[in-house]
């Protein structure tokens, strides 16, 4: 406890010491360093052939960079750095990256650590089922004899108890194993974030998304905390991307061929 306290204190002191205005920094260095995921299909995935990052998050990061450059009439280029779920907040605090577009849900706890933009993607918990399944929504799962599969340690598991208390829940080690179990008929549906399910549905023919989102956990772009100028610039850019059709074009580009998803509902 004492060690943790001291370590926490040191870490806090260190991050406060080099607290700089992100907006000043990007103008000075003519670049925005974005943290993106490399392992999330459709959002941020490393293309092993080209070595490039590809996905909705990546395109949003590039588009926002371009829009800010236009708004401020400065030169800006987007640089992409791979982050993981556990590393991204620390990398923001250490100023290794300026912002993230990395499937990050806006939460109260995280808002103490970082600043979020307005939501840029309507994430939430959803269901993946076999194409011929009679399950239409989470309500159909709420009966004895139904089984739902999820990955252990995700919030999707406790949420199920709330939305379908009668369903039997199987927790497996990760998404790959959960998907294998669903294919083997060990459960009626697989549940987690819609963003993950879209990727799984696209990769596994014969499976589809049903019922839309039954929780509301939208993703936001994030910066280090206390960066009102950078957040304002990013929000403005997001608004403009929605207005000029870029946002809708990117939604269509990435999500129009996800089985069972009416991608038009994602458009703004």
């Amino acid at each position: 406890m004492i060690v943790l306290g001291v370590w926490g204190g040191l870490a806090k002191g260190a991050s406060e010491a080099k607290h700089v205005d992100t907006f000043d920094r990007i103008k000075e260095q003519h670049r925005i360093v974005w943290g993106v995921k490399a392992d999330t299909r459709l959002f941020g995935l490393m293309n092993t052939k080209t070595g490039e990052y590809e996905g909705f998050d990546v395109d949003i990061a590039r588009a926002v960079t371009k829009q800010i450059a236009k708004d401020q009439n400065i030169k800006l280029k987007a640089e992409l750095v791979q982050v993981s779920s556990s590393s991204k907040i620390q990398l923001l605090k250490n100023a290794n990256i300026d912002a993230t577009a990395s499937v990050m849900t806006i939460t109260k706890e995280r808002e103490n650590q970082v600043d979020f933009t307005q939501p840029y993607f309507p994430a939430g918990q959803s269901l993946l089922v076999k194409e011929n399944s009679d399950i239409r929504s989470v309500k159909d799962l709420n009966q004895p004899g139904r089984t739902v599969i999820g990955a252990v340690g995700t919030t999707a598991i406790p949420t199920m108890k709330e939305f379908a208390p009668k369903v039997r829940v199987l927790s497996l080690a990760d998404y790959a194993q959960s998907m294998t179990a669903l294919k083997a008929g060990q459960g009626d549906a697989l549940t987690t974030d819609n963003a993950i399910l879209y990727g799984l549905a696209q990769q596994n023919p014969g499976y589809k998304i049903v019922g839309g989102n039954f929780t509301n956990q939208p993703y936001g772009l994030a910066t280090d905390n206390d960066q009102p100028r950078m957040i304002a610039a990013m929000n403005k850019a997001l608004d403009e991307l929605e207005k000029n059709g870029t946002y809708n074009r990117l939604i269509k580009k990435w999500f129009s061929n996800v089985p069972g998803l009416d991608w038009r509902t994602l458009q703004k």
Partner: protein
Amino acid sequence: MTTIFTDNLSTFLSGFGYTLLASLIALVGSMILGTLFAILEILPNKALSIFGHTYVEIFRNIPLLVITMFFYIVISNAIKISGFWSGTLGLTLYTSAFIAETVRAGIQSIDSGQMEGARANGLSYGQAMSRIILPQAFVVALPSLANQFINLVKNSSILAFVAGFDIMYQANVIAGLNFDPFNTYIVAGILYLIITLPLSYYMQHLEKKSA
């Protein structure tokens, strides 16, 4: 640690129950199968003996996880088989191969004159085996059998991989919710000890008696 146990009492206890149930089923199953294949192995009939050897070598030399996953993922496409039964079946087949070897060694430690004597007195092969040889062979094999049972209980944690609701599975679920895997897994370890320690003491007792 104690609060983790009391907070999740029903979850841990149900895990304990499933582990105990899987272990008991696998114990009985693997004893029957193991003895059967031990006898097959030492039969004078070449074909049956090779069949017995093949079974033992296959299941002794494939990882338990692979056998279990085979039932859970592959077999379940044809016959509906739950995680609990996949794990318990995998555990039974895997352990039966080790028990076959233990029982075979026990049988072969009995002087061959006993079989000859029994047959000379008019007993059939089956009668001689079940009434004269096997009872003695089990006494010889008992300490190493007890050892196999301890391994069986510990190996039952394989059920966690296929959502078999055992102690390890419940510990994973609890640790995923409370973010305190350290204390959660300590509780899980203690629950396993409650089953295995008596077995271990019983084995030591047997060793002393036979020494």
